[in-house]
Each structure stands twice: as C-alpha cells, then as structure tokens.
C-alpha cells in the first residue's frame, strides 16, 4: 500500500498562522485539513460592555491587512442599530477609503504573495532579481493605494479617522486632486497588472461553486447591498444568520461557515466578479474579455486576474469619486445611543465580512458577532485541495506541496482575521 502525506507545517505568504495536512492512499485523497492555529483573541467576548463608538477602532485590530473592512462593517452595523444613514459625500469618502484598501491589499497579495508561486520563486524579493520592473511597479501601485488610506483614514494600518456617523475630519478638494494625479498613473499600472497576471500559467482546474457576494442596484459592491448567490440566495443582510451557520471543528481555531442545508460556499473577488460583472465600467468589461476572463470564471487559480481587474476598478472608482467630490460641511452626522440590534456586511478584499451588534439604551455592546471572509472560505479551500490533489497526484512531493500552497493562496487567506485560521501536510499511503 502506498501512503503519502503532504504537509506544510507553517504556510508562508499568508497573513497569520496556519498549516495544511493532506493524506493520500493509493492515489486517492482520504483526508484534507486546513489547520488554523492562530491563537484565539476573543474579540466578540471583550467587545461586550464597550461603547458603540469604540467598535471601529477595536475591531480594526482583528486584521492589520484589512482594517478598513472591519471599520466599515462595524460602522454600518452600528448605524443600522441606531437608525442613522450616512449619505452624500461622506458615503463617497467611505467608498474612496475602501478603494485604497482594495488596491493596497490586492496588490500586496497578487504581486508579493501569489505571483512568485506562478513563476517559481520563494518570494517577491527573489523574483525582483529577474522581474525588477514588475516588482517595482507593484510596490508603486500598492503605495498609491496606501496613500488613499492615509489621506482619508489618517494612517495605512489601523486608520484613526473613521467613526460611527462619518469621520473626525474630511479632506478638502485640493488634497484629493493631488491624489487624483497619482491615481491616473495607478490606473495605467493596474492595466499592466491585468495583462501581466493574465499571461501567467494556470493549472486546469474548474469547480462548480456557490458564489456569495453583495449586490447593489447601482454599483460594484463595497459597503452595501443584498447578499446573493448564483444558486438562489437573495437576502437582506439581517437574514445572514438564518441562511449561514458556523461549525466548530477540532483542527481549527477558526469557525467553519456553511450555507444551511447546502454546505460550502465561495466569497471574495471571484464571487463578486461573477455576480456583479454587469456593474463594472464597459472598458473594464472589455479588458476582461480581451484577457480571457469571461464570467463565470470557475478556476480559482485565475483569482489573481480578477484581483487585478478589481484593482483597476478601484483606481477607476477612486478617480470618479475624486472628480465629483465636494467637501461636506460636517464630517459626521448626528448619532445618539439607543437600544437595538444592527447588521453590517461589507466586501473586504477577501470577501464578505459580517458584523452584528446588540446595544443597550446607553450604546454599550451587549452582544457581538463577527464572521470574517476566510472562515467562510475555509471549507471551500479544503474541497479544492481534495479535488486538486487527486488530479495532480502524479507530481513529486515537493512540487505537489508547493501547488497545494498555491491553491490555498488563491483565496488570499487572512488567518489573523479568521480567528475566529495555515501548515501543508500531504500524507500518501
């Protein structure tokens, strides 16, 4: 009998701590475990008794890679609980801030963490010796994304300017126009990124997924919309917990999410793109067609192309917001505490991020629920590995191990977040 174990004790180029264990018996996969050993930090527990005003700053600390996502989901949940709507230019500024995070996070992942897999380098720094322009342009594009976050948010990691009801201070038109000049360059760099990533070699691998993303009547989704899927989900976000469930498994400190009565689902760039392609500007649709990314894209390895298209969209959208911007008179709308429950669900770079809070009459948090994108993808990642290893079982162990890591990185897993999430370990029998 021929048993083979592929294991990666500490998965690299992902954010946070996790591993992977795959057991193969006579070329059949018999077990796949995505192990998450990121130590639990208990955010939902210590949020109890904190003020609603503190949630954006505290929950940002769940993830240093996508703090804006945590701030956005928390402010929307609080505003819904408190019966407040933030519209006009303040809403646009939130969207602009999110554009910055999408650019920064997508470029970090696509160029620095994922491309080295496709080209066979251990990291972007080694890759830079052969592809110096690619890496330099990537760093420049990422920097411009960070500059958006810094201007609107105050700093790139854990922004200080976001509050329930709006901002502490809003930028003036001139500051945004200066950023606009850089974004014109960024848009060009993002177009190059789309063409470059579309030319990478992709393993043949397509699966029948249930994609879940926000959908908004007028725009490619960031902060608002209904939750929809390609297989019948169409709900208000307040129905999230009636539709999705979390399971606690022994090998992970992250909870696994499923669609009740159905099972695994897929969130993130591929899901957004496949469900919202019609909301992209026509020139970006045309470029997607030109580079062969026609929806539905069912090969998760091509997520890097979609991430690049979304980066281009974020540059386009940021420019649109900047050109139309008129500085609002007040940086924040009036917010008063009251008892109630609110839901927030926004599109983090890696997929939907759900928050739910119940507040008392003084605005103190009685109960908090936070479901990050990576824990929602965890079961889908395991399924992918299951099918991928069977197909690629003839590869030598070192090659197979690397491709398994690459398959996990398709999802840009953010393990720090999923704590509430990697080692690859392939065992052959």
């Amino acid at each position, binding site marked *: 009998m021929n048993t083979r174990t592929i294991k990666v004790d500490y998965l690299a180029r992902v954010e946070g701590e996790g591993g992977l264990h795959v057991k193969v018996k006579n070329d059949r996969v018999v077990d796949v475990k995505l192990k998450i050993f990121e130590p639990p930090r208990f955010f939902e527990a210590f949020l109890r008794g904190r003020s609603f005003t503190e949630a954006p700053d505290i929950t940002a600390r769940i993830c240093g890679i996508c703090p804006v996502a945590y701030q956005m989901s928390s402010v929307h949940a609080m505003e819904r609980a408190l019966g407040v709507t933030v519209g006009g230019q303040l809403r646009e500024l939130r969207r602009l801030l999110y554009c910055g995070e999408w650019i920064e996070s997508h470029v970090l992942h696509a160029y620095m963490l994922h491309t080295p897999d496709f080209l066979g380098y251990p990291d972007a720094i080694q890759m830079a010796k052969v592809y110096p322009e690619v890496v330099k342009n990537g760093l420049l594009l990422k920097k411009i994304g960070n500059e958006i976050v810094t201007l609107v948010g105050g700093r790139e990691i854990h922004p200080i300017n976001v509050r329930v009801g709006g901002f502490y201070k809003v930028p003036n038109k001139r500051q945004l126009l200066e950023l606009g000049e850089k974004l014109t360059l960024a848009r060009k760099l993002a177009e190059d990124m789309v063409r470059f990533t579309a030319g990478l070699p992709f393993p043949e691998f397509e699966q029948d997924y249930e994609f879940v993303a926000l959908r908004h009547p007028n725009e490619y989704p960031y902060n608002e919309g209904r939750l929809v899927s390609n297989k019948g989900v169409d709900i208000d976000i307040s129905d999230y917990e009636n539709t999705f469930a*979390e399971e606690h498994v022994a090998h992970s400190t992250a909870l696994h999410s499923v669609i009740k009565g159905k099972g695994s689902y897929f969130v993130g760039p591929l899901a957004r793109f496949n469900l919202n392609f019609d909301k992209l500007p026509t020139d970006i649709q045309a470029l997607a067609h030109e580079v062969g990314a026609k929806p539905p894209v069912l090969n998760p390895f091509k997520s890097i192309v979609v991430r690049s298209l979304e980066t281009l969209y974020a540059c386009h959208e940021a420019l649109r917001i900047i050109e139309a911007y008129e500085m609002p008179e007040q940086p924040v709308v009036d917010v008063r505490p009251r008892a109630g429950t609110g839901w927030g669900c926004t599109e983090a770079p890696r997929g939907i991020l759900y928050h739910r809070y119940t507040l008392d009459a003084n605005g103190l948090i009685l109960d908090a629920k936070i479901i990050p994108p990576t824990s929602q993808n965890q079961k889908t990642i395991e399924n992918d590995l299951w099918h991928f290893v069977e197909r690629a079982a003839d590869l030598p162990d070192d090659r197979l191990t690397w491709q398994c890591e690459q398959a996990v990185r398709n999802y840009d897993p953010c393990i720090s977040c999923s704590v509430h999430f990697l080692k690859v370990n392939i065992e052959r029998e």
Partner: protein
Amino acid sequence: MPRDHKPKLAVWKFASCDGCQLSLLDCEDELLAVAGAIEIAYFPEATRSVVRGPYDVSLVEGSITTPHDAERIHQIRKSSKFLVTIGACATAGGIQALRNFKDVNSYVKAVYATPAYIETLEKSTPIADHVFVDFQLRGCPVNKYQLVEVLSAYLNGRKPNTPSYSVCVECKQRGTVCVMVAHGTPCLGPVTHAGCGALCPAYNRGCYGCFGPMETPNTAALGEWWRKLGVSAPDIVRAFRSFNAYADAFRKESEVYEHPNYQG
C-alpha cells in the same frame, strides 16, 4: 564593522493582527534596499524559504497567550543576538489582554461552541515577561519609519533614535492646536508615548493611547482633568483599557476608577 556575511533577519509572530510586520512590507520605497542590505532568513508572511538560525536580529510581533507560545519564545531568544519587540501586543499584551481583567473561560464559552478544542492561557502577556528583550518599539501599529530606524540601528551597532517623550511634544512640533485646551476634547496625549506623529489631534480627535504610556506619566492628573471635562468613571476605565490595557501605568489608572471606594 567588517562582516563576512549579510546580517540575518527573522520576523516572528505570536497573538496579533499581523499589522506590525506588514509595516515592513508597507515600506514600499525602502523594501528592496533593506532586502539588499540584509538576509531575510525567516519571514513567513513574505517568503516560503527558511534559513536556519542563529539570527542577528529577531523582530517579534504579538503577545504570549498559549502554553506552546510560552515555550516557543525561549527558543527564539536562544537563536537571536538582538531581540526587538514590535507593537503593542508584544510590548504590553495588546487588545487581547482585556481578558486579564476577566475570567478567560467565560470568553472561550462566549466565542466557541466546543471550548474543549481551545487551548489558551489565562492572561495575554508581553514578550518581556518571558525573556530578555533588547528593545521595545511601541505602537498599534508601529510607525514604519521608526521600524526602519530600529533595524538600521541594530544592523549598524548603535542605539535606535526613537524619542520617549509624550504625544504632546509631537503636537507642538506639528503645530496642532491642543484639542483638550481649545475644544475640551478628552485626550490621552499627555501620558502617551510619542511615535505616531500626533495623528489623532491633527484629525480633530483626542489621542486614544495606541502607543502606550510614556516614561513616568502623570495619569492621575490627567484622569482628574478628564473628570472636569465631564467624562464618566466607566468611560475613563475604557479609555485606559484599550490596546495597551495591561501596560502598568494604564492598568493601574483604570483600576482607580473602577475601585468600589472611588468617589467621583
């Protein structure tokens, strides 16, 4: 100092959000130059290649919260010439140290359906509670320019130049009008370690202390000022209990306002 090899850098993670080590990748203008001057020997967030120790400089992010991590940090200390902690988790226990004020078992039950699967310590503690630390860089997150300064200092055999005064000094340097004096906005700036460049007051909000206490802060006097501004005792407790809740000065001041004999 002549070297026969590039100095080896390792980056280690404990309980944290990854933001402080991400600061290194956020040095877009400096990253390739830094990578040229050193050998990145262990940095799993950035590379899958691993070079064996010992290491010249180890950057440690995150706090100690599991029995396994309490062991692991000793191995890292043994294999490191200089050990530098980066960020509020590693230097003060982080936001996850809020468990230190409660019963951690109630926290496990609040988050996880099967608490038996979870292995955690009662307290989240800073690295210096476990091993000797050569230098502590503050911030939630750290300031990336200070991070480059610290790396550069240790690689060149000198002390890092990171001022230990309060955020107030940075406001003056920046020309920001005092938000507490001019607008009556409660601000932790007078007791908070510099390093952020006094960001929050420049955005019309009070400092919320993410760089932790400065050396010998007068937290008692600041607490009284906050009371005069009409801040309630529970709000003062919460203000001192955030990202550096378990740093001595902030912890003690928060306990004053929570004490049953406190007369507010």
